[in-house]
C-alpha cells in the first residue's frame, strides 16, 4: 500500500492533467480503498438484504400482492383495514401485550433474585450459573416447545404434580384463559441470560460501599434498597428493553404449542404468528408487510417511551 501511495504522489506532481487525475484517483484509493474492500460484503448485504428490502416492504404495504400477480397499488387500504376491520389483528396485539406484560417482569424478577443469591462468594457459583443458564440456551428449540406442550397437557406432568397436592389443574393448553400461561412459564424458565448480565452488573458495585453501610448499621434490606438497586438500574433498564423487544418477536413456542393456529380462540396468536399466517398461509404479502411496519412502530414507540421515562429512574454515575 505504501508503494502505491509513493507512485501516486510522484505521478500527481506531473504536469499533464490526465496523469494528475489518475494520481488523484490512485491517492483516494490508497487512502480509502482498503476500508471499502473490507467492508464490501457487509455493504452488499446492507443494500441488498436490508435497505433494499426495507424500502420494498414499505412499498408492498400499500399494495395487494399474492406473489403470483404483480403488486396492485391500493393506497392506505391495508392500514385502514388493520386499524378498523381486523379482529385477528386486535386479538394478536392483545395476546402479545399480555405475554410481554406477564413474562418480562417475572423473568427479570427471577433473574435478579437468583443473581443476588449467587453474588459474592457462593461456593459452586459456576455450577449453579451453568444450571440456570442452560434452559436459556436450549429454550428456543422446537424440542423444548414440544416438551412444554406435553408438560402442560391436561394429563401432563404439571397436573400430575398438582394432583399430588390435591389441586386439580385445568387443561392448560386447550383452555383459552390458561393457554398463555404455558408460554409465559416457558419464557420465565429462560431467565438465564438476564441473570448473567445482572451478575456482571452486581460485580461492578464496590464491596466497600456495603462495608461502610454495614458499619453505619444499615440492615441487609436497607443496603439492597439504597445501594444495590439504584446502582443496578442501568442494567435493569438494559435487560428490560432487550427482554421486551425479544418478547414482542417471540414465535417458535406459540407456533409449536398451538400447532401453528394460535388457538384456542386466538389465545396464543402472537403478533409474529399472525404475520406468518397472513404472509405464508394466505399469501397476503402486502397486508403482511403492513403488519410488519405496524410491529416496527409498536417496538419503536415502546423503546422511545422506555428511554424517555428512564431518566426518572435510571441512575448513571457519570
Amino acid at each position, binding site marked *: 500500500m505504501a508503494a502505491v501511495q509513493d507512485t501516486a504522489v510522484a505521478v500527481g506532481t506531473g504536469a499533464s492533467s490526465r496523469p494528475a487525475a489518475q494520481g488523484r484517483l490512485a491517492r483516494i484509493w490508497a487512502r480509502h480503498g482498503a476500508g471499502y474492500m473490507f467492508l464490501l460484503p*457487509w455493504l452488499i448485504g446492507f443494500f441488498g438484504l436490508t435497505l433494499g*428490502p426495507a424500502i420494498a*416492504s414499505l412499498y408492498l404495504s400499500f399494495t395487494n400482492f399474492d406473489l403470483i400477480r404483480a403488486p396492485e397499488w391500493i393506497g392506505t387500504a391495508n392500514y385502514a383495514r388493520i386499524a378498523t376491520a381486523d379482529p385477528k389483528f386486535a386479538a394478536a396485539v392483545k395476546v402479545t401485550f399480555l405475554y410481554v406484560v406477564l413474562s418480562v417482569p417475572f423473568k427479570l424478577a427471577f433473574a435478579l433474585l437468583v443473581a443476588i443469591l449467587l453474588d459474592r462468594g457462593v461456593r459452586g457459583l459456576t455450577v449453579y450459573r451453568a444450571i*440456570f443458564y442452560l434452559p436459556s*440456551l436450549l429454550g428456543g428449540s422446537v424440542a423444548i416447545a414440544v416438551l412444554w406442550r406435553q*408438560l402442560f397437557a391436561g394429563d401432563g406432568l404439571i397436573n*400430575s404434580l398438582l394432583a399430588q397436592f390435591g389441586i386439580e389443574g385445568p387443561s392448560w393448553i386447550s383452555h383459552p384463559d390458561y393457554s398463555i400461561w404455558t408460554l409465559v412459564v416457558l419464557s420465565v424458565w429462560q431467565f438465564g441470560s438476564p441473570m*448473567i448480565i445482572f451478575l456482571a452488573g452486581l460485580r461492578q458495585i464496590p464491596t466497600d460501599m456495603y462495608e461502610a453501610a454495614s458499619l453505619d448499621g444499615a440492615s441487609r434490606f436497607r443496603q439492597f434498597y439504597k445501594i444495590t438497586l439504584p446502582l443496578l438500574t442501568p442494567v435493569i433498564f438494559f435487560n428490560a428493553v432487550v427482554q421486551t423487544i425479544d418478547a414482542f418477536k417471540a414465535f417458535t413456542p406459540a407456533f409449536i404449542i398451538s400447532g401453528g393456529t394460535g388457538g384456542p380462540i386466538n389465545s396464543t396468536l402472537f403478533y409474529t404468528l399472525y404475520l406468518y399466517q397472513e404472509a405464508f398461509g394466505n399469501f397476503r404479502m402486502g397486508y403482511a408487510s403492513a403488519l*410488519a411496519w405496524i410491529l*416496527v412502530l409498536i417496538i419503536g414507540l415502546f423503546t422511545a417511551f422506555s428511554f424517555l421515562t428512564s431518566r426518572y429512574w435510571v441512575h448513571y454515575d457519570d
Partner: protein
Amino acid sequence: MTDATMSSATAPPPVPTGRRGPVGSILVHAALIAASIAMIYPLLWMISASVRPEDEIFASTSLWPSAVDFSSYVRGWFGLDVSFGRFFWNSLVIAVLTVVGNVVACSLAAYAFARLRFAGRNFWFAIMLGTMMIPYHVTLIPQYVLFLDLGWVNTFLPLVVPKFLASDAFFIFLMVQFFRGIPRELDEAAMMDGCGAWRIYWKIMLPLSLPVLATAAIFSFIWTWDDFFGPLIYLNDMNSYTIQLGLRTFVDSSSTSDWGGLFAMSTLSLVPVFFFFLFFQRLLIEGIATTGMKR
C-alpha cells in the same frame, strides 16, 4: 458499560467477603439447590421419558424408569419417510456454512470499522449499529420474494448466503469491541515492516482474536441449529428439512401415537447444543455478560 463489564467478567471470582453467616449460607444453598432442581427437572424428565417403555411414559412423575429401553430411539429415527439422519446432516451443513460465513464476513467488516481509516467510516458504523435495531419482519417478505425470484427457495442458499454478507451485525459489533482492545502498536510496527491491511488482518488481528471469533462461531452454530423460522419458510421438501422442521413434522404426523419416539428425537436434537454448552461455557457466559447478546 461494555468495557467495564468485560473486565469484570474476565476477572477472577471475588473472594467470599463473609457477608453471610453460616445459617444464611445454608439457606442460600438450599434455595439455589431447590431452584436448580426445578430448572432442570423438565429436561431430565424428557430424557427419562425417552428411555422408558412406552406404556410407562405418562404414568409417573418420577425420573427413574423401571426399565431402560432404547427402542424409542430406533422408532423415532425411522418414524418419518425421511430418517432423522438426513435432518441432522442438513442442520449440520447449514450450521457449519453459517459459522464460516459469519466469522469471515463479520471479521472483515469489524476490522475495517475498528482499524482502517476511510471516508464515511463513522457514518457506516452508525448505520451498522442501526441495522441491529430493525426487526427481521421488515425485510422478511421482500427477501423471500428476492430468493424466490433467484430460484433459491427450497435450497440452503437463503439461509447461508446472507451470513457471508455479514447480515448478523451483532457479531460485527462484538468483534469491533474486541479488535479495539488489541494494541495499535502491533499494526503500526507491521506497517513499518511493509505489511498491507490484508496481512495485518490475517497475520495479526485474526490470530490475536481467537476468543472472540470462537464466541461468535459458537453462538452462530447454536442459533442456527435452533432456528425454526428460517427453515420453515425456505425449505419445503422433506429431504431438505433441518432437525427442527423434522421434529415439528414428527409432532404433526405421529406424536399422538409415539410419545417415546418424539421425546427420543427431541433429546437427540438438543445433544449438540448441550455439548457446545459443556465445552464452551466460559466463552458463552462471557459473551452474554459483555454484550447482552441473546436471541
